[in-house]
């Protein structure tokens, strides 16, 4: 049963990532779509980790954020910066993704565990 919920969650996450990327790509902003979905995913990750439940809905949510966020596309975009010699952009994109991701994850965790006390 866990697999069913996790799988459906992942599929939905992937579809939302795909649609977000398509919308942003129409304005040549595909990169910001990856950044946005990754950051939203990190925030939700902190929240559901703080809930500390094993219900099927939570399993589905973990599936969802796994499908929503992506490490492979994130690095492919950085590799594209490398091939076009935009080294400064690699630095900015990586620093902002990793640090803001951690901050949002921590924020989601702390706010949720604070509220549920």
């Amino acid at each position, binding site marked *: 049963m866990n697999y069913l919920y996790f*799988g459906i969650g992942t599929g939905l996450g992937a579809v939302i990532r795909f649609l977000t990327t398509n919308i942003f790509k129409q304005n040549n902003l595909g990169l910001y779509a990856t950044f946005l979905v990754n950051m939203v995913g990190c925030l939700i990750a902190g929240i559901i980790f703080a809930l500390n439940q094993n219900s099927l809905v939570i399993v589905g949510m973990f599936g969802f954020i796994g499908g929503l966020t992506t490490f*492979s596309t994130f690095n492919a975009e950085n590799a594209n910066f490398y091939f076009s010699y935009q080294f400064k952009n690699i630095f900015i994109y990586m620093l902002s993704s990793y640090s803001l991701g951690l901050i949002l994850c921590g924020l989601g965790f702390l706010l949720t565990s604070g509220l549920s006390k």
Partner: protein
Amino acid sequence: MNIFLIFISGMFGGLLRYSISDYIIFSSFPLITLLINLSGAFFLPFWTDYLGAKIGFSEKYTKILGTGFIGSFTTFSGMILDSYKLLQVHQTNLFFIYLFLNVVCGLVLAILGDNLANHLNERKQL
């Protein structure tokens, strides 16, 4: 139609990650997420720029499998959550090692995957 295909390929990518991490658990260091992410970082550009076309997929289906399957196989939020968990248990050294490996190896492997694809494409044209 595209959305349905993305849903299916994304679902399988996520389930593959889920089943791997279900069976192999390292207690102190989130090695599995790291290995899954790094393999995906290498394989996505290699798949998009070489293997997908070689197998005979059209650009559309190569993209659908790349975005859906490999994109969902890897996870950014899971990696960040792993790092956060290391911080919570005061494993600061492991936290920095983990982040360092993700940052450096992720980028290097993506570049290598792209390079290998370009290299093989050039050889094919000779």
